[in-house]
């Protein structure tokens, strides 16, 4: 029996008892740091994989400014502003967190509670904003045609991208409608049939000479997508076999599907960190309010949770740069 269990052979306290503090850091804090280190490596793995894929498709990668152009309640083309707002929210909630830690060092219970509360609100606003960003991305903005060789074609007029609904006229021509549960077979619904058909889009393109097709290819000198001539555009359009509206894991109206996959995966993984951070903050908030740490005589738990929260902010700084800026 004694060979299998660890029995303290002398009366000295073990590390887990909290008496010995290597590097002057408590067990919990040190382990939080090493957890953060491993989590940072996970995120850098994702971002580096994104980098590899982007380099692989460098001549046809979506331009972030043309993808994330929306802000809530306002129509128009506003790249960057919304994600900048999200960045501010997260940095600010990091500040309230560090203020809570600071107040904890001075044993000011009320201040710690209020700052933690503000941090939780900031986190909720951030997650809400991210949900809106996802919703906008999933619903799409313009609509596109996918060709048989997996290319995405956009439509432009006077150099600006336009939506399918801006120029497509006539009717689908094939009489197809979405099969819903209430028609035909019970509790069976079919794939959503887009409002327009490919042939209808091609006919509308032929009818309006001011419409041009924009390919995925990037002009290296101008860093803009190449706009095709009318003839070349028609040639590409005739290869079209699918209307794409919005983005998901199979198709992406903004360009390469793997861009959408990485977007969902990286911002989703980060958003899940924010979500779990909020949950932990809420638990700690109640502990503070109930006076748990006051009785314990130390607010170090706030500090440890704070480390995690700052890490979430730190990761966002990198996601912001590599998804939206670079």
């Amino acid at each position, binding site marked *: 029996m004694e060979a299998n269990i660890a029995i303290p052979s002398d009366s000295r306290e073990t590390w887990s008892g909290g008496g010995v503090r290597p590097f002057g850091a408590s067990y919990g804090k040190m382990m939080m740091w090493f957890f953060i280190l491993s989590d940072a490596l996970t995120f850098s793995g994702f971002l580096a994989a994104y980098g590899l894929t982007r380099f*692989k498709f460098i001549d046809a990668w979506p331009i972030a400014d043309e993808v994330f152009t929306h802000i809530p309640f306002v129509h128009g083309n506003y790249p960057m502003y919304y994600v900048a707002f999200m960045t501010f929210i997260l940095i600010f909630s990091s500040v309230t967190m560090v203020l809570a830690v600071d107040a904890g060092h001075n044993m000011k219970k009320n201040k710690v509670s209020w700052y933690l509360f503000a941090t939780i609100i900031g986190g909720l606003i951030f997650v809400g904003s991210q949900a809106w960003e996802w919703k906008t991305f999933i619903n799409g903005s313009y609509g596109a045609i996918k060709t048989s060789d997996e290319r995405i074609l956009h439509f432009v007029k006077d150099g600006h991208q336009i939506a399918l609904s801006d120029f497509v006229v006539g009717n689908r021509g094939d009489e197809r409608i979405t099969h819903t549960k209430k028609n035909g077979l019970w509790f069976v619904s079919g794939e959503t049939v887009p409002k327009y058909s490919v042939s209808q889009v091609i006919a509308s393109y032929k009818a309006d000479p001011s419409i041009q097709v924009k390919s995925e290819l990037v002009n290296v000198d101008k860093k803009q997508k190449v706009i095709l001539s009318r003839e070349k555009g028609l040639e590409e359009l005739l290869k079209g076999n699918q209307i794409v509206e919005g983005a998901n894991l199979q198709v992406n109206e903004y360009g390469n599907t793997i861009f959408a996959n990485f977007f969902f995966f990286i911002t989703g993984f980060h958003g899940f960190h924010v979500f779990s951070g909020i949950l932990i903050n809420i638990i700690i908030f109640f502990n503070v309010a109930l006076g748990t740490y006051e009785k314990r005589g130390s607010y170090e738990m706030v500090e440890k949770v704070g480390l995690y929260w700052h890490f979430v902010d730190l990761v966002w700084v990198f996601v912001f740069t590599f998804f939206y800026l670079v």
Partner: protein
Amino acid sequence: MAHAHESNVKRIWMVFGLLSVVTVVEVALGIIKPEILYLTRFLGTSPLNWIFIILTLFKAYYITWTFMHMEGEKTWFRRAVVWIALFLICYLVTLLLIEGGYLFDTLGPLVNW
């Protein structure tokens, strides 16, 4: 921590100001995209991208050192975390980006635009 019981509130707000200014600069550059920075090339990418990367590392430094209070930890504890992260991330990123460039160089010519 030697100064665990003094208040750092002033410094915290200063760092917040600094991070905000850097973010505003990043966003402004991202919206304006000055052609001289955006359309020229320097060390494999545009100078604008280098500016973004440097500003990001600048922000990461301040978040880690002040907000996460790395500056107050013992030297070798700090190094045990930061050096490992820096070394492994640089290693990974270098290899993967070289590999990505190679994939484009070999597969790119096969794609018919």
